[in-house]
């Protein structure tokens, strides 16, 4: 029997159902795991996504032919049964389950297992074949519990205040920024944000999310108001003249890449918080094992190492797959690259 999903130039293709999942070239029918730009591209004639993804897609891709589903709801395309399940990566992020002639495949998209309170609690789906990301697929990536990292961030902010400095937290506008704001929910102070983050936050609040509002920083925002405050900014803003207003300040970067000292040092930042929206090594392994999949395709990240490990340890028959995911994802590149790209996006 042919594979339910094949890996084509345009992306992950399901021939039986005649649709693509997260295609990187325009197609007729696209199923979207989540709204990050490397997974949700413009130009498709039809989009199927989780209902929480829709407002973000509208903000980023404009008005298109969107159809939404709830988690666990089944719909059919040709005779392929499709359902979306929480992936825990960002708001609306979903794994996509396909069932056809007793064969079950699951596409993970990007995922994390720790419940961040806004992205939905990751659900393990039993399947025959599992297509998993591997952004942090090396055993050097083992995350601390998020509460410990949140405490670190809050302590850092307090130390900055004592030293008369503002705290500039660098976080990607979609996903990480909402999570960092979640971490600061208990603190009562006003939180300021870059326009890109403000826009997203407003979109989500308008869509009915109970999130901390942030104050947008505009050219008119007086410098005095920003003294010793907390500012959330996307990576593109780091090192630009936009930051001058907050001086004196300290920069803290929230990214899984901060796990390795060199990445923080390269960017000359005061603090790195290894807070990631991706599964770490142990989570990837647990997930692969729990799905019970016999076959595993490993995409974007350390696919070679992770698939080799799965094979050698007889956890599954694994193969690495080249995709274009991660090329523009917030976390799959080395930080320097992202910085350059996002600068273009935001300036």
């Amino acid at each position, binding site marked *: 029997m042919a594979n339910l999903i094949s890996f084509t130039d345009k992306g992950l293709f399901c021939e039986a159902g005649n649709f693509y999942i997260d295609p990187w070239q325009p197609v007729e029918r696209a199923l979207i795991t989540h709204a990050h730009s490397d997974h949700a591209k413009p130009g498709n004639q039809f989009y199927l996504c989780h209902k929480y993804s829709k407002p973000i897609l509208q903000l980023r891709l404009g008005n298109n032919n969107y159809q939404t589903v709830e988690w666990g709801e089944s719909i059919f395309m040709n005779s392929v049964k499709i359902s979306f399940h929480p992936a825990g990566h960002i708001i609306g992020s979903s794994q996509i389950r396909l069932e056809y002639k007793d064969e079950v495949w699951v596409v993970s998209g990007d995922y994390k297992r720790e419940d961040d309170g806004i992205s939905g609690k990751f659900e393990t789906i039993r399947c025959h074949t599992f297509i998993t990301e591997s952004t942090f697929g090396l*055993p050097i990536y083992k995350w601390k519990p998020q509460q410990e990292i949140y405490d670190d961030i809050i*302590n850092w902010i307090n130390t900055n205040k004592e030293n008369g400095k503002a705290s500039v937290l660098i976080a990607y506008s979609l996903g990480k920024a909402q999570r960092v704001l979640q971490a600061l929910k208990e603190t009562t102070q006003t939180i300021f944000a870059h326009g890109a983050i403000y826009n997203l936050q407003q979109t989500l609040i308008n869509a009915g999310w109970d999130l901390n509002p942030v104050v947008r920083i505009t050219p008119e925002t007086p410098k005095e108001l920003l003294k010793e405050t907390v500012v959330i900014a996307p990576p593109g803003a780091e090192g630009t003249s936009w930051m001058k207003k907050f001086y004196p300040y300290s920069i803290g970067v929230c990214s899984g890449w901060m796990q390795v000292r060199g990445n923080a040092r390269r960017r000359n930042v005061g603090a790195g918080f290894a807070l990631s929206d991706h599964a770490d090594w142990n989570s990837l392994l647990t997930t692969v094992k729990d799905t019970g999949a016999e076959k595993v395709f490993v995409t974007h990240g350390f696919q070679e190492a992770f698939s080799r490990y799965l094979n050698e340890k007889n956890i599954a028959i694994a193969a690495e797959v080249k995709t274009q995911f991660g090329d523009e994802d917030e976390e799959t590149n080395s930080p320097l690259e992202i910085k350059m790209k996002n600068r273009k996006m935001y300036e």
Partner: protein
Amino acid sequence: MNENIDIGNTTWETSGLQMFAELVTELSSSTKTNDKLQSLVDYFATAPDADKVWVIAIFSGRRPRRAVNSRLMREWCLEIIDIPDWLFGECYSTVGDFSETLALLLSDVEIVKHQNENLGFYLEKLIHIEKENESIKKKFIVESWQQMNSKEKFVFNKLITGSFRIGVSQKTIVNALAKVLDISPSAIAHKISGNWDPVTTSFNELLGESASITDFSKPYPFYLAYAIDDSVETLGETNLWQAEWKWDGIRGQMIKRNNELFVWSRGEELMTEKFPEYFILKDLLPDGIVLDGEIIPAVDGKPLPFAVLQTRIGRKNISKKQLLEAPISFFVYDLLEYNYEDWREKPLSERRKKLEEIILPIHNKAIQLSPIIDFNSWDDLAALRKKSREKNSEGIMLKRKDSVYKVGRKRGDWWKWKIDPLTIDCVMVYAQKGSGRRSNLYTDYTFAVKDGDDLITFTKAYSGLTDKEFAQIDYFVKRNSLEKFGPVRTVKPELVFEIAFEGIAASKRHKSGVALRFPRMSRWRKDKTVGDINTLDDLKEMLKMYGK
């Protein structure tokens, strides 16, 4: 940030090792020298005395001999977390730092019992187990890992394996101590130099009032020059300046005190035993003297290329053949102490006059005066500078005749005026991930020139580009790699670079037959294609011209 670990109902006090781990974390995350200085000041004001001595020792190149090799540490780590060796290799090439790789891999190893020991405890223990068998070493290392948090594991591994590259110069350490103890930085620099052992030296002995009387080997801090950035004309009248050749050897200090001879390198390594040629000078030099000069191989008064000196560095036993082919001389250019008296505050002209009086009558090939270059105008000197390579010199040193001998790198009175480097255009063929702040980025490259229709590799280079350029090349490498050999990727030969280097020598170890000195990427030649690069014949031509 809270490093206190709760075990049962007991909260442990901060231990010496924890304080040191925090210091290292602060130093490596702060980007300003002033912040680093403040971290060090805070540390020296609060840490246990014995640990302070160790920190000074570590940051001034006096770490203990290595007790455990990396192969064993790697094996033990694999055993604990049960991963295959190749996966360790993948992790290492991504992290770019061995100690950190270990600490990250071991990060979820349960802390059995958090130990509350000082830095000195671990270092002395490491010295103690150096000669012990493998199982004793293993027991200590593995148990230590089980008693430490991640930051502590990291610094502990660093203590065993190598240097702390966290951007702290010895100068910063000296300034921090000066601030804490309220003594002048030059006095501190002198006190912490020389031959002392952190195991037997107390903080008070090292830095107290009476310190430094008895250590006859103690060198002075070196005075270093900056490269001249303006044209030499801006230096004014030529007769105010003394010009010398700049030698490509090891900067050294030769000391004779108490009828003993000591030779120090600028890296503050005691090198007396490495150069038996110098032994005779113990009888020929007057007592109570300190000389500044260059350790360099020379035949008939002419220096040999640095590659020749390299055959002598790091060797314990020196063969007759080496003594014959690469005899080491000391090209002396300054006098720092005479008759047990510190001469550094006297003007250069006076020091030079006395130096000549002492050295000229000696007539031994183990020591010679580094000559003063005669010149009447800056144009004159510029013309002479062009001939530096013929003399195996790197260019010219300019020193004000009335200059005193300062401490460290200072602007104004001394300048180096180096020759322009040699350059060659070539193509990148292999790339490897860098380390430290370049971890997980492809920044270490191997380059090739044309050899007929083939490409032949001839050098590696890591530096010279901006972060932005490195990021662009990293992007290219990740999308244009052809094969992977361990951490090395072969890359489509497309990116052309101009490599600058200071010298070229014949080498049997390299396929191309040449070895370059100080190669670095001087320009990314986006205007050139692989068709435009230089050839192996061009390299051989350079070898013929400059290789002797």
